[in-house]
């Protein structure tokens, strides 16, 4: 077998084994994305119950809480960046980082100091490579975030927000993450998490479920005090779960196109190897025929 042929065969073999890997990753991502989406749906009742309760309190009591109060002159802005732990997900992390850089620039131009909080190893690497400091980092759960993780992050950012810029905290808090729209579309989104704006979700209460006159136990302030941190937690959990679903969907898509590309390459190299083999045979035949005719001429 000629050198050329061997070369092509070797490449085909290595591409075949790579294809097996990307195919396996595609299938894994495909099966996990279903679970991730189910988890987003499962957390909706919790988020809805909390949103409803917060709206109810807000209707009957003056919502004058540190977490909802706009600061006069924000000087430090927190930036939570939610990326993935691992690559092989196409432009998933790159898109998030790109958007976060834009926001960072925008915030700095408006005279705010940016305090980054990083979620996911990719974001950590991005900051480490640029030798930037981060206020907090969390990683190791990007494709299946637990509620504990959401609790830890939201605890930290709420504490920093309440501390305020004067005490090394922040005055406002933005989250850059990816929103899961459907299997083919995931959008990078920016949410201003704190100070809180209570949104009623997409389901407006109909007339017959107007909020009744609630009794608060022990008092409306106390209830609000307990509810708002939970609201932040629920939002954070939802954002993390959506990011996880998006990451898996992006990975599935990236691995699908890698597998398709490998197939294409295998086809090309098989053709080339066949061609090389045929060329070798033709050459051998012409050598034999040439040799035979030289012998015949010599007679």
């Amino acid at each position, binding site marked *: 077998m000629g050198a050329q042929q061997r070369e092509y065969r070797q490449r085909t073999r290595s591409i075949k084994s790579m294809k097996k890997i990307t195919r396996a990753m595609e299938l894994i991502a495909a099966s996990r994305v279903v679970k991730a989406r189910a988890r987003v749906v499962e957390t909706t*009742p919790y988020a809805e119950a909390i949103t409803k309760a917060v709206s109810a309190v807000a209707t009957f009591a003056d919502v004058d809480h540190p977490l909802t109060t706009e600061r006069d002159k924000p000087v430090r802005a927190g930036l939570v960046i939610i990326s993935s732990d691992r690559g092989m997900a196409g432009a998933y992390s790159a898109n998030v980082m790109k958007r976060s850089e834009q926001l960072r620039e925008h915030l700095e131009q408006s005279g705010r100091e940016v305090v980054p909080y990083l979620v996911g190893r990719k974001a950590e690497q991005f900051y480490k490579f640029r030798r930037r400091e981060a206020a907090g980092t969390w990683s190791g759960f990007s494709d299946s975030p637990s509620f504990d993780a959401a609790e830890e992050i939201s605890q930290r950012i709420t504490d920093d927000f309440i501390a305020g810029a004067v005490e090394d905290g922040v005055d406002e808090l933005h989250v850059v993450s990816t929103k899961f729209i459907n299997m083919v579309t995931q959008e990078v989104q920016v949410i201003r998490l704190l100070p809180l704006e209570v949104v009623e979700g997409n389901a407006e209460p109909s007339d017959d*479920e107007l909020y009744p006159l609630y009794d608060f136990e*022990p008092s409306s302030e106390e209830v609000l005090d307990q509810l708002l941190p*939970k609201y932040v937690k629920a939002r954070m959990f939802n954002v993390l779960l959506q990011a996880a679903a998006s990451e898996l969907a992006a990975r599935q898509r990236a691995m699908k196109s890698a597998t398709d590309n490998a197939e294409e390459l295998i086809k090309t190299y098989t053709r080339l190897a066949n061609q090389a083999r045929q060329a070798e045979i033709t050459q051998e035949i012409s050598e034999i025929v040439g040799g035979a005719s030289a012998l015949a001429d010599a007679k």
Partner: protein
Amino acid sequence: MSELKVSLVAADRTVWEGTASKVIVRSIEGDMGILPGHTPVLGVLVSGDVRIESGGKQHKATIDSGFLSVDHNSVTIVADRVDADDMVEAVGR
């Protein structure tokens, strides 16, 4: 006599959903029993047991901190974590 529509919701799932005749929770000011026709309440719960009496049976779950909302005979109990191992015939799992 009407019944209570109860849902017990944890951060990551709905633990129990159904109708009940009585719900007992531990609020920040002490244990609190809810019967049908209770006045609308929004209350803060501390860690403890939630007991739901439904069809002559009692379902028990342990929650960490959470809150409770009651209006028009529908009761929603929300907690971050719910330990529902003792819960009989949990619905919606």
